């Protein structure tokens, strides 16, 4: 099949490639947030963390010349934001959703403020693996030009799934999330466990942000995130706190983002905005169908404020 005769086939190919490209930040933020939520906290501030990660990752990569150092720096900034969230939430009478919104505003403000000198420069970007080498079709090769972070996320997803289910560490996180009383009775400090879980969530969100600035689209500017951070929080609920489902949902949300341009490329042009909002609608639908006023959502951590 030659490139010219692909016709409508370009849509699924483009959506596949687009899903891989667009989904990576969703994947990282949602896997991190999943662990945070499993411990019984929700962090809506990940949008701010994501943007801080994008900015600081780009800045460090630009200054050091190493994109991987940038990724690490973005993760570390995420840890700081996660720790801040956890610390404030551990105070009495503090609502985790409100703290999340506060840190979202703070993170976005700080990133825009510190990122002013980073709009113009260019930084080295993350490498990609040419997994489409077997194909002669340039579209397929391009679609399977898979970035390194996506592979990391792909490998990490089952590891996280296994770890949550089978390790002592996973058990503690889940126990704290389901009943802090029980955890305390067994001698584990919910505050400390949630601190670690939120820091982990922050780390992942920071890394997810660095993907935006260091791979795709691959530069820093203030419009970089169009709400990927906050969408990823909804995505975790959509995926019912299951890492493998998070992976699938990330691909779905990413693919939805890629569908619009791909459809236009073959001549379907109406309804752009509604198409972009389709993932939100889908999430809402799933929530309505899967929830019940009498019992909690299946798989939901018992202490999680948004499922009480």
């Amino acid at each position, binding site marked *: 099949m030659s*490139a*010219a005769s692909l016709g409508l086939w*370009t849509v699924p*190919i*483009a959506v596949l*490639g*687009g899903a891989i*490209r*667009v989904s990576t930040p969703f994947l990282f933020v949602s896997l991190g947030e999943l662990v945070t939520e499993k411990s019984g906290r929700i962090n809506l501030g990940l949008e701010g963390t994501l943007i801080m990660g994008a900015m600081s990752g780009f800045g460090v990569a630009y200054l050091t010349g190493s994109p991987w150092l940038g990724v690490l720096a973005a993760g570390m900034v995420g840890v700081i934001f996660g720790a801040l969230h956890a610390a404030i939430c551990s105070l009495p009478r503090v609502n985790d959703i409100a703290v999340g919104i506060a840190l979202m505003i703070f993170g976005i403000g700080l990133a825009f403020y510190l990122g*002013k000198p980073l*709009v*113009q420069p*260019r930084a080295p970007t993350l490498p990609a693996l040419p997994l489409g080498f077997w194909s002669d079709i*340039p*579209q397929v090769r*391009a*679609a399977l030009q898979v970035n390194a972070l996506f592979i990391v996320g792909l490998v990490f997803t089952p590891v996280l799934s296994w770890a949550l289910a089978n390790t002592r560490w996973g058990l503690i996180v889940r126990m704290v999330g389901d009943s802090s009383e029980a955890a305390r009775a067994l001698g584990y400090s919910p505050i400390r466990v949630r601190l670690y879980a939120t820091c982990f969530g922050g780390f992942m969100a920071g890394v997810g942000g660095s993907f*935006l600035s260091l791979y*795709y*689209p*691959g*530069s820093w*500017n*203030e*419009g*970089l995130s*169009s709400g*990927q951070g906050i969408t990823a929080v909804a995505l975790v609920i959509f995926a019912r706190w299951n890492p493998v489902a998070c992976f699938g949902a990330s691909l779905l949300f990413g693919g939805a*983002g*890629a569908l*619009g*341009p*791909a459809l*236009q*490329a073959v*001549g379907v*042009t*109406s309804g*752009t*905005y509604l198409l*972009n909002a389709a993932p939100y609608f889908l999430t809402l639908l799933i929530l309505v169908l899967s929830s019940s006023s009498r019992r909690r959502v299946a798989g939901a951590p018992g202490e999680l404020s948004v499922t009480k």
Partner: protein
Amino acid sequence: MSQDYRLSRRAVIAGMSAGAAFSALPVGSAWAATPTVGFIYVGPKDDYGYNQAHAAGAAAVKAMGVKVVEEERVPETIDVEKTMESMINLDGASLLFPTSFGYFDPHILKEAKKYPNVTFMHCGGLWHEGLPANVHSYFGYIDEAEFLSGIVAAHVTKTKKFGFVAAKPIPQVLRNINAFTLGARSIDPTITVQVIFTGDWSMPVKEAEATNSLADQGVDVVTCHVDSPKVVIETAEKRGLFTTGYHASQAALAPNGYLTGAEWNWEALYPSLITDFEAGKTIPGLIRGGLKAGIVKTSPYTALVPDAAKAKADAVKAQFMGDGFVIFAGPIKDNKGATVIDAGTMRGQTDIELEKMSYLVEGVIGSTS
């Protein structure tokens, strides 16, 4: 009701002496003293695009020793009204450049009535008879530079397919897409231009995604009309495509693909306007012009541009600079087959019909709705 606004490069450098530059309309306001000048941007002023081009103009004004106040990221809401008022009341500004298209109606119109002694220069060409005398509008025929970009790109393409990433299907954008297409097809009528609308002016991920799907479609030249072309140009560079720029030069971003580009030249227009204000000259209500007036320019050809392309583009450019060259010369069909400009009809740049453009010309793949 427009006047061609002409401004030669030499005149700018000479500091704009009297005479040649402006043809006056009855409306206009005069200033005899050095004003404090306010510039308002809708986005960040270092965006490699629309706002940066205006900020470069502001910097040129500042370099003249004029006091300049600037504010960026001002939304098209009550915010811009209050920013204008604040510049007037607290900074003593008497000349304002609110540079976003959406500032005009209702915001600038409201303020112009409120502050009849302040002059408002709006970028967008929305002036018409009957507006307050202190409202002026200016815009450049950047489609001339797009036409030249199309000519240049037509000389390097192998697949005969171009891509155009655009924000919204509005007349200014459609005019650029059409001019680019007509330029390309004046060289090779088999060329098609695939357009993708992202829906908004600054959507980095969507712009990258659009560029990638264009690449998947087999296009080998990409250009765009969004606020910041950086993402499109960089993504196209990664995919090994040729690019032509917009708003400002993105040559530095794409050493292996950048050919030329359509740029604003506000750093020439703004200082000359200030000079006229200081000299107390009457400023026309509507200031428009293209390459000849020096309001727009093209990026210098890069080493990737073949000599034949340079020669052809320069020849057309010479016509733009001389007696004029009509881009929208009938017969022109839209991409659904309907005739939109009849044979024999010449729609010159000042033709008001072009401001209402709602179609994509033959050869463009895409739809305006």
